[in-house]
């Protein structure tokens, strides 16, 4: 207390004293105090700014989106691909028509291709640069040879990028390191934007003074004297608004940045940060991505004229956009080339050459986002099992998927081309579809269509439309039966007669055939290939609903399956992808093969993070499955699927099954060739009725797809323990090949009929009758 009083007393005293002694000392004291306070505040502010800078620079500097790649195209002798499809693949992968000698270019002369690859780092090893030569004849690659580079019998093209998983701010970039960048790029950047970059301390007072003078004269901000460091600070930490306070902050932070970090570090960050364009909502940042975006080429392959254009665009990426304003862009580029020449970076001859060249910009960006929304949706769901969303958005992961662009294109075309022809009026507008295509033996999902408009990133019917599968369930009923060769063979007679089931609660169920006819006794294979309901339900009840349910579960169905007999006619709901999973086991002779959309995930540097390997799991006897495959082939040749051959040529052997639910609410088709498995669904989102069946709705979509793809027909290897016999299936007896009703049918060894019938007797009778007629 005492002290306080004393001090306040002395203060008063001194103030009186100073006022008595005139204004000057008082003024200086105040000034000193304000200055001290100002300095303290400034010091505090700088500590704060310093923390802002180091925090950002020490941590992860950039949120880099994850990149999603299509499967790479494998080129080798015998590979099935058409010339047109190869050209499309090359363009998708960012190749340009040219001499075929420059990396990333190709030359086509009819069916002859010369391709120079850029090389690519795959998770399982590097694919070096090569020059390739090949011919395409009959949709197959022939005379494949490596003209330059490591010899190889099989070569992968670099994969096309099909999408990205972006940070919330939608900035896209490909990070580059200073030592990977051609030296001419930073040198040009400095010549144009900041000549004294290596000498200044973050700001260049002379430049600022010059700029200020110009600004004062003009009465507004017309010139910036910013160093590269200042530009980086502005983009990195501050708003784009030009105010004095911001300018001050910018200068302070630039000095602090230079104090903490070396010039190389700052330059590298600048190269990755700078804004160079816009693609929809996505911004193109950094020279690494800009090079891809404008030229479809890697930074290391750029020519002088291209480097000059990119550096010139720093000043105003949309004003100098070379795709939209080629003249402005050319003028700006040529100005930069002159600066390069003046700074001694290039010889006058090279400068003149560069000025004479066209802009060299690719027609369109090498890929656009959301090209395959339904497929990427499935990829993201698979990724969500192992990765956090925030990591996918920021860690620059590289995701190698199984998408086959040619097959995806054919699938989209089949849907959009066929759907409008299926119905008329209101139904036509309301019709929707989904199509899933997988590689039969690897379970890789090659294509996915989620609706009639494949570009629409909305309701994904391939994944989210869970519908009753109708007769698609039948092969599993028959498989359950045929797994007991002591009781059933393909020629076992079944009753096609109506019956009534009465339940304990008094409810009655009376199934009917689709055509409401009854045929009496028919062989088992005919009942499946013609999709008759009555014999199927009888067979299912005989085998046991529980047994059928177990078969379905073994084939990968995880959704609840009704224990009621109506399940035998498909009263169980699934989405098209699940149906594809279930049919995979049928197509591969009883081996479940989990569906995959991702082969590998690596970090930004290419180090593998996860691999999703091929898995197989035998869930059924290959011999029994072979018998079901027989009936499913018969479906295509003689049964409910035969209209496929109006679209598909006869020589392509196929197997499949139609499915229809009440009032045509769902039209399904699931089937396979030697290489591909495809599941098509057609119906309405409101679950309303249509006039379609599986054969008139989904099958046309399915066959339209199959007809477009070069592929092997379905011809399964006869498993151990199966024998083929000529039989008369109506009479359940062995017969001779030349007999009228003879049919070559597979049997599990030991289950073949022992009785023989010959048609020779019948022939004798026919001849006899002919003679009788002659002499009558």
């Amino acid at each position, binding site marked *: 207390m005492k002290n306080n009083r004393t001090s306040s007393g002395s203060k008063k005293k001194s103030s009186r004293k100073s006022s008595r002694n005139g204004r000057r000392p008082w003024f200086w004291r105040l000034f000193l105090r304000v200055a001290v306070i100002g300095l303290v505040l400034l010091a505090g502010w700088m500590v704060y700014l310093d923390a802002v800078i180091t925090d950002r620079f020490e941590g992860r500097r950039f949120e880099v989106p994850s990149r999603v790649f299509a499967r790479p195209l494998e080129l080798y002798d015998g590979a099935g691909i058409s010339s047109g499809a190869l050209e499309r693949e090359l363009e998708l992968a960012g190749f340009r028509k040219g001499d075929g000698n420059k990396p990333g270019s190709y030359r086509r002369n009819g069916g002859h291709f010369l391709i120079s690859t850029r090389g690519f780092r795959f998770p399982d090893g590097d694919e070096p640069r090569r020059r390739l030569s090949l011919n395409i004849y009959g949709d197959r690659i022939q005379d494949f040879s490596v003209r330059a580079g490591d010899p190889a019998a099989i070569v992968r093209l670099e994969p096309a990028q099909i999408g990205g998983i972006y940070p919330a701010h939608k900035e896209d970039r490909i990070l580059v390191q200073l030592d990977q960048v051609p030296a001419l790029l930073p040198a040009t950047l400095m010549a144009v934007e900041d000549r004294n970059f290596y000498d200044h301390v973050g700001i260049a007072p002379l430049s600022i003074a010059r700029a200020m003078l110009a600004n004062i004269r003009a009465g507004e901000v017309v010139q910036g004297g910013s160093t590269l460091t200042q530009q980086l600070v502005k983009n990195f930490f501050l708003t784009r608004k030009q105010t004095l306070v911001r300018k001050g902050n910018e200068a302070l932070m630039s000095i602090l940045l230079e104090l903490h970090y070396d010039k190389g570090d700052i330059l590298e960050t600048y190269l990755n940060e700078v804004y160079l364009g816009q693609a929809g909502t996505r911004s193109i940042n950094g020279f690494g991505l800009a090079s891809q975006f404008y030229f479809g080429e890697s930074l290391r392959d750029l020519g002088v004229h291209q480097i000059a254009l990119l550096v010139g665009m720093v000043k105003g990426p949309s004003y100098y956009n070379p795709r939209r304003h080629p003249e402005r862009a050319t003028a700006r580029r040529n100005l930069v080339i002159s600066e390069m020449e003046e700074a001694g970076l290039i010889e006058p001859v090279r400068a003149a050459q560069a000025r004479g060249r066209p802009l060299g910009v690719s027609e369109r960006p090498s890929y656009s986002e959301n090209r395959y929304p339904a497929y990427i949706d499935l990829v993201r769901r698979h990724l969500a099992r192992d990765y956090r969303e925030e990591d996918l958005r920021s860690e620059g992961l590289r995701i190698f998927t199984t998408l086959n662009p040619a097959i995806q294109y054919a699938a989209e075309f089949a849907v959009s081309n066929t759907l409008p022809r299926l119905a008329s009026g209101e139904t036509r507008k309301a019709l929707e579809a989904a199509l899933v295509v997988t590689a039969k033996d690897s379970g890789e999902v090659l294509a996915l269509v989620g609706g009639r408009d494949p570009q629409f990133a909305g309701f994904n019917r391939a994944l989210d439309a869970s519908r009753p599968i109708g007769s698609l369930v039948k092969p599993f009923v028959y498989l359950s039966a045929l797994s007991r060769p002591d009781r059933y063979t393909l020629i076992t007679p079944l009753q096609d007669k109506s019956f009534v089931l009465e339940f304990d609660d008094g409810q009655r169920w009376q199934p009917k055939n689709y055509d409401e006819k009854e045929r009496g006794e028919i062989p088992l294979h005919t009942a499946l290939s013609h999709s008759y309901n009555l014999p199927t339900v009888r067979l299912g009840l005989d085998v046991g609903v529980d047994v059928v349910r177990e078969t379905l579960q073994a084939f990968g169905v995880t959704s609840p399956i009704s224990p009621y007999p109506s399940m035998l006619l498909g009263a169980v709901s699934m989405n098209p992808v699940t149906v594809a999973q279930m049919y995979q086991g049928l197509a591969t002779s009883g081996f479940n093969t989990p569906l995959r959309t991702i082969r590998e995930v690596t970090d930004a540097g290419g180090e593998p993070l996860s691999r999703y390997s091929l898995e197989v799991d035998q869930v059924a006897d290959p011999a029994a499955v072979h018998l079901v495959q027989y009936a499913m082939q018969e479906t295509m040749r003689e049964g409910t699927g035969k209209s496929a051959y109006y679209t598909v040529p006869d020589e392509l052997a196929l197997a499949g099954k139609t499915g229809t639910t009440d009032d045509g609410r769902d039209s399904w088709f699931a089937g396979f060739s030697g290489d591909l498995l495809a599941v098509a669904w057609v119906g309405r989102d409101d679950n309303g009725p249509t006039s379609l069946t599986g054969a008139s709705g989904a099958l046309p979509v399915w066959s339209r797809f199959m*007809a477009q793809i070069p592929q*092997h027909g379905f011809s399964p290897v006869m498993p151990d323990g199966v024998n083929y016999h000529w039989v008369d299936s109506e009479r359940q007896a062995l017969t001779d090949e030349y007999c009228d009703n003879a049919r070559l049918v597979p049997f599990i060894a030991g289950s073949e009929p022992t009785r023989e019938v010959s048609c020779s007797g019948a022939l004798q009778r026919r001849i006899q009758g002919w003679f009788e007629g002659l002499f009558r």
Partner: protein
Amino acid sequence: MKYRVIGLAGTFSALLILSGCASSPGGIYVPIGGERRAPAPPPPSTSTEPTGSDEAPVWRKSEIPDEPEPSPEAGESASPSYRDSGESLSPAALSLVREAESYLRQGNTSAAIAHLERAQRIAPRSAEVYFKLSEAYVASDRLGAAEQFTLKGLSVAGSDTHLQRSGWRLLADIRRARGNIAGADQAEARASAL
């Protein structure tokens, strides 16, 4: 036990060299209409609704019979197809298998598996590739997967007794290593019966 399984690898390598060279690619379906069967995809930024009027509608709705209508020409069309044996390896697939073998020798099983999966994609009906995959899984001590790939290989080995016998022996060894003695004996019996 495991030693014996790995020891078997040598016999497979020899077998692959023998059968790999004698390959010829099987028949492939070539779509009609060549380049004109589907219009080229439009630029990514524009709509992808194909508007190709050159696309001849092969199919008309009136031609589609009702689903359960039996075919009048039943029996006249091609009958269901099957084959006695799987496919032999193309030179391209064989080169991948060779690379995988060299990775296996270096003890790099994951690289070996990656190469074999590439081979499997281009030769999905070749028993040799599946047996090699089985071998790679034995080397990485995943015997469950090894057994499944052996079974898969056997399912496409067809009437090739040489492949069948090798497959059943491999299966017997893997089952024995997994402690399934009865299953091993069964597989051994299958091999001997060939």
